[in-house]
């Protein structure tokens, strides 16, 4: 199994997180995303992903793009316990809502971070930040109701691919100049996410336990 990857990409992190949680060994194929823009090279576009985006997963003859699609694939195929993507119509419907929301987070919060950190000056930074706040408000409202009912996760009673998909760009929002101080339920959920026993961080999201890899 091979992952086309870049360390600072939150979307790649989602896949690394689930692969680690499931204990799956894989080859990490680094892409010169910045400053080389290798993901926009002719070779990458023709052979790996015509959309010029990472992550892309290569497994058993399958070439799969889109972080959320990869999460669903990995959980469906390799999670014997069916915990990360439960085999239940209602839960899957709800999970799909948050997988789509994750795309909205990428369009707003991740774009703001690319603007501030990697010089993507073509983005309208104020529009990105305003959009991120709109999505964060929706998630915070949902989580505050859930937390009032004693639940911790976006869907069901344990973390699922929905939580993984929404986590990194909320955790990294500060790097795009987006404060999450006004979203207490969101912050509590971030803390729960980081407190999972097999949590791994990324550059910009520290693991709570420094002795763990």
């Amino acid at each position, binding site marked *: 199994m091979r992952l086309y990857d*870049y*360390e*600072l990409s939150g979307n790649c992190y989602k896949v690394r997180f689930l692969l680690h949680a499931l204990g799956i060994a894989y080859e990490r194929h*680094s*892409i*010169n995303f*910045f*400053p*080389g823009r*290798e993901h926009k090279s002719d070779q990458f576009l023709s052979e790996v992903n015509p959309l010029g985006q990472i992550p892309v997963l290569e497994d058993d003859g399958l070439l799969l793009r889109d972080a959320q699609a990869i999460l669903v694939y990995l959980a469906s195929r390799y999670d014997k316990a069916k915990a990360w993507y439960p085999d239940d119509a209602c839960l899957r419907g709800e999970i799909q809502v948050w997988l789509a929301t994750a795309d909205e987070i990428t369009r707003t919060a991740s774009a703001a971070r690319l603007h*501030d*950190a*990697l*010089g993507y000056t073509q983005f309208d930074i104020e529009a990105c930040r305003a959009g991120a706040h709109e999505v964060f408000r929706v998630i915070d409202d949902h989580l505050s109701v859930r937390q009032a009912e004693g639940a911790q996760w976006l869907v069901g009673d344990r973390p699922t691919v929905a939580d993984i998909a929404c986590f990194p760009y909320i955790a990294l929002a*500060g*790097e795009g*100049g987006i404060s999450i101080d006004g979203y207490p339920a969101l912050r509590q959920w971030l803390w729960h996410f980081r407190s999972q026993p097999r949590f791994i961080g*990324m*550059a*910009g999201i*520290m*693991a709570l336990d*420094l*002795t763990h*890899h």
Partner: protein
Amino acid sequence: MTFQCDDRTVLDDWLTVGPSTRLTGRSSTNPYRTKLLSSDVDVWRDGQGKVVARCGDSTLMVQDAYGYLWICPSGKPTKTIFSFPEYAEPGRRIVDCDGIGVAVSGLRMVENFLDMGHFPYVHAHYLGEVPQTEVAAYEVNVDESAGEIWATNCRFYQPKTSKSATTGLDVQYRYRVMQPMSAILYKTAFPRPGEMDAIGLFVQPHDEESITAYCLLAYYDDTTTETDLLSFQHTIFGQDKPILENQRPKRMPLQPGSEVPTRCDAMSVAYRRWLKARGTSYGAVR
């Protein structure tokens, strides 16, 4: 005044505005535009290949050195651009890691670069490892003739000092500050333990609280791919970024007593003293 900066020491320094490759495909009608000291700066090469820089109606003093563009905002540099002999040394490989934007004062960025104490915490499993957190005593000297600070005889145990490292190593370090916003660190080259790799940190201050931090490697490493070297360096920078952005105040306090240093901060103490003595205030608490 062209720039929103009244700190003569910074105006008379050489400040980078990014790698020279930014000028590819640029011209006087379609220049590379970037922000320096709160002003827009346009840079391009003229027909003869000479670099030209303008800020509003003013032509700026600019040069191309070490693969980077350098502007002296006042046009009256106190000294020539710093030496970087490792850049042209045979056997070394030059890798430009480009820059990452950080919402912090340039002075805090450089100070973080000079600090070994944070390695086991912020760069766990790469540049340090709990519980091996002790910073051994090292020497700090100001080279008055060159106007630079040096920290020497530094060493630190690092589980993975660079991309090419396959085991942990007691790594030797030397630090050199050439200007308030430019520094180089030298560290044991994993593939050639008798030699030292050089890593340049060049800070472009967009304003007093936001910068781009560029990084240039002059490495002894013939085997690691460029992508892997970049990936390693971006990982380290990405780990520092949230720590830097959460420092309060964003500007650096230079008044003694406003922050409490310990013995391992000797380099930081020397840096702050040196800034105060030369009268640098841009990016500092005033």
